[in-house]
């Protein structure tokens, strides 16, 4: 069953159908290669291979996937259909503007919608994912201070932040200084004050943060940073928690990125493609990447390349355009009120689920959560178990596991994000599973330790796989 596609190759077979060449064969006046070693397989066998492979995946369309920080909500099918329209999928990015008015209009409209939703002035859709948006945003800030002639290179990042935040800061050529969390899980204001200086370029913040908690001091924080001359960066991975209830722009953020593949329902694709549009306040608009889509006085749209202060390009062309098509479809499908209901339900689901499991697990910060919450499995240590054992046992019970071991400030963190597209009964079933597991941990810890038992493969030996890593198949 787990035969590799290469092992199914049979010389002389093919799944390919090419129209015979209708022009004269040109002499190959260039150096050419030998056999590649690609497999030779008929179409029926290729189809079977991948259909059967797919069944070894757990996905949102199979069941509950409460992977914290990832917003694994339902991916509406209409989104996929719209992105597949030949009028989008078969556009070439080098086409003249007059032949791509619909695409430019869509980009403009999405920019407008996101600006309204986030409370910002303009968005670029070029960044291909959240981390890419972070880098973009930091480069915009860098450029801003360059223009102002200020030498600032420190990026403050809370200890609860996602790994991409410091990694992006490093990639932007900045120094990372970590800010501690306080007892309520928010930014420690004292620590922040201490670390602010005229070298600080920005504070990167997720709000609600990775604990799922809204930082009530956000206005104080913004004020402190701004007074110190720095800017505020908003990691929009958690926009789901406040969308329609509070806008990052209003909180004082100067730059935001949004993950269209989270809040805006575009599929995660087994890892991607995503899209990480970056929105800015007016002061940063001049630096946005090229091309930027502009609406002209006559109502037509143009891809503007001539932006002398721009940071340049973050990737080729217009970003992951088809992902933008899906997100735009979603925004139109929900409308303003729907977006607010989305958040209301996501937050209700999270708090309800939390209420069902909080007794059996440890809740490090006892507060209302937003769209997700983090439990600690610290006490499972008593029974010789780790958070990973809880996760694996959940797989046996037909659920995907929550995010584990993140944020690092919580020991044995289990980060649970139900999203608004789950039903009450699903939440209850999941809560029952978590309670059962806690019970099993006390009475039959081996059940967890040896989990999973009924998945396509059982627990995988990571250590061995890393000791002598094998990155590719080779004919044996």
């Amino acid at each position: 069953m787990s035969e590799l596609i290469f092992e199914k190759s049979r010389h002389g077979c093919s799944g390919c159908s090419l129209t015979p060449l209708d022009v004269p064969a040109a002499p190959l006046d260039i150096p050419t290669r030998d056999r590649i070693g690609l497999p030779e397989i008929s179409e029926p066998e290729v189809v079977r291979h991948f259909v059967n492979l797919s069944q070894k995946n757990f996905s949102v369309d199979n069941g509950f996937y409460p992977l914290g920080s990832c917003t694994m909500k339902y991916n509406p099918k209409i989104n996929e259909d719209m992105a597949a329209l030949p009028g989008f999928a078969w556009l070439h990015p080098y086409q003249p503007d007059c032949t791509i008015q619909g695409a430019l209009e869509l980009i403009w409209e999405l920019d407008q919608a996101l600006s309204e939703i986030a409370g910002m002035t303009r968005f670029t859709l070029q960044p291909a994912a959240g981390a890419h948006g972070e880098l973009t945003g930091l480069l915009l800030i860098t450029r801003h201070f360059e223009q102002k002639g200020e030498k600032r290179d420190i990026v403050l990042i809370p200890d609860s932040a996602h790994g991409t935040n410091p990694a992006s800061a490093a990639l932007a050529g900045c120094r990372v200084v970590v800010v501690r969390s306080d007892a309520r899980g928010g930014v420690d204001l004292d620590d922040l004050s201490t670390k602010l200086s005229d070298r600080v370029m920005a504070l990167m913040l997720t709000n609600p943060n990775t604990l799922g908690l809204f930082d009530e001091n956000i206005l104080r924080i913004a004020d402190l940073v701004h007074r110190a001359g720095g800017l505020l960066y908003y990691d929009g991975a958690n926009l789901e928690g406040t969308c329609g209830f509070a806008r990052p722009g209003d909180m004082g953020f100067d730059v935001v990125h949004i993950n269209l593949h989270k809040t805006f329902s575009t599929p995660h694709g087994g890892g991607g493609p995503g899209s990480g549009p970056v929105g800015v306040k007016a002061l940063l608009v001049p630096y946005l990447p090229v091309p930027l889509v502009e609406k002209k006085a006559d109502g037509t749209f143009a891809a503007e390349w001539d932006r002398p202060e721009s940071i340049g390009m973050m990737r080729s062309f217009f970003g992951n355009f088809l992902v933008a098509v899906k997100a735009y479809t979603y925004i139109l499908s929900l409308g303003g009120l729907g977006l607010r209901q989305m958040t209301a339900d996501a937050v209700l689901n999270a708090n309800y689920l939390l209420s069902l499991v909080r007794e059996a697990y440890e809740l490090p910060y006892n507060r209302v959560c937003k769209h997700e919450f983090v439990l600690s499995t610290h006490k499972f240590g008593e029974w010789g178990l780790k958070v990973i054992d809880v996760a694996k046992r959940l797989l046996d019970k037909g659920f995907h596991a929550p995010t584990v071991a993140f944020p690092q400030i919580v020991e044995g963190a289990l980060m649970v994000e139900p999203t608004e597209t789950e039903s009450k009964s699903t939440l209850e079933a999941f809560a029952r599973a978590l309670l059962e597991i806690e019970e099993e941990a006390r009475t039959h810890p081996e059940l967890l330790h040896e989990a999973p038992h009924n998945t396509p493969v059982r627990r995988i030996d990571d250590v061995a796989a890393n000791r002598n890593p094998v990155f590719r198949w080779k004919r044996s």
Partner: protein
Amino acid sequence: MRYFPLSPDDRREMLAALGISDNKELFADIPPAIRFQGEFQIPALSEPEVTRRLEGLADKNVNAKSTPSFLGGGIYQHYIPAAIRHLVMRSEFYTAYTPYQAEVSQGTLQAIFEYQTMICLLSGMDVTNASMYDGATAVAEAALMARAVTGKNQILVARSLHPQYRAVLRTYLHPLGLEVVEVPWNEKGQLDLAATPAENAACLILQNPNFLGLVEDCAAAGQWIHTASGLFVYAFAEAISLGLFPPAASFDADIVAGEGQSLGMPPSFGGPGLGVFAAKEKYVRRMPGRLVGAAQDVDGKRAFVMVLATREQHIRREKATSNICSNQALCALTALTYLSLMGEEGFRQVAEQCFCKAHYLADRLEKVAGVKSLFQTPFFNEVAVVLPSDPHRLNEALLQKGILGGIPLGRDYPELGNAMLLAATEVNSKEEIDRLVQAVAEWRGGQR
């Protein structure tokens, strides 16, 4: 809203269970000053309405499926076997995420492992990652990796590297204080090794075929940069060329970075595509992106799992090899299904057909008075020609006749004046090409 499974009763019951009466209480932690009081001016559309709206936008575009097109420049139209979408659109693939829980993600993991192998076969390299955002960022990451490996701060880049890749490179390298030095092309349009010293270079980035469609002397370039202890980064913007060209490893490339859109993806207005990234195994710990490795489960059953995660941001944070997290996994799966279907023979044949079509196009165009090839150098599936006047005007004339022409080169390469880059692939029929050439001739006739 049809996507929300909570019924009004559910909401009531859940609030009651939480001991609150209004969901506003769940947002009480938001300071009143920043509670959003307005309402987004976005009316909700029904599914039929949203369909009409989006179809309306799509119809405002001229698409390269129903209109013959000769646009290339890093994004190409190739035939996409029908089976691909049926496979990639399997719910289990596209609605899953990064395979963090390996035991229930063997579909994705095995697919990535197979994809990695496919790219290793095409490139001859040892290790391929699970994907980067696109060709441009893959090249930028290659430069960063070369810096990390060599400790040198200068990046040599062929001026014939895709202009947008160079632009992205500049954006990425500028804040890190790395110096980007462009290496010009010679009179044949190929890299001019004599023009630039290599001593301080972390790497040389050379695109093959280059942006002008020309085949480079990669062996010479590789040797040259290696002599100066820099890495050789083999870049590509047309993955189909990998079916015909000697593998990058045969030029002793250290890193291969490029765009994989041609492997089963439509042009998509430039995205999503597929950033391909491969390298020699000795550099693997400096590589950006995810890697999947072969493994076994506790019962000794074959399995796959993400490996060397210690390079990555979620563990290494600011010391990670890259900040990449979400990548283009579904595009990698698309490329995998494409290569699986095409197979050894088919993939080679597509490459050869592209070669022949472009050569037919070039031959025919050359016969139009006033049009000539920019260089007489071997090329793959794109040809740069010099026109008697502004190529934008030609494109307008072609559009009148229902043809999407080529890319005017003047904006990115002012020195090339009225040059235009035209691509032909296996989907351009002889009849289409003849029609294009005829239209060019007529336009040219009208000019005089």
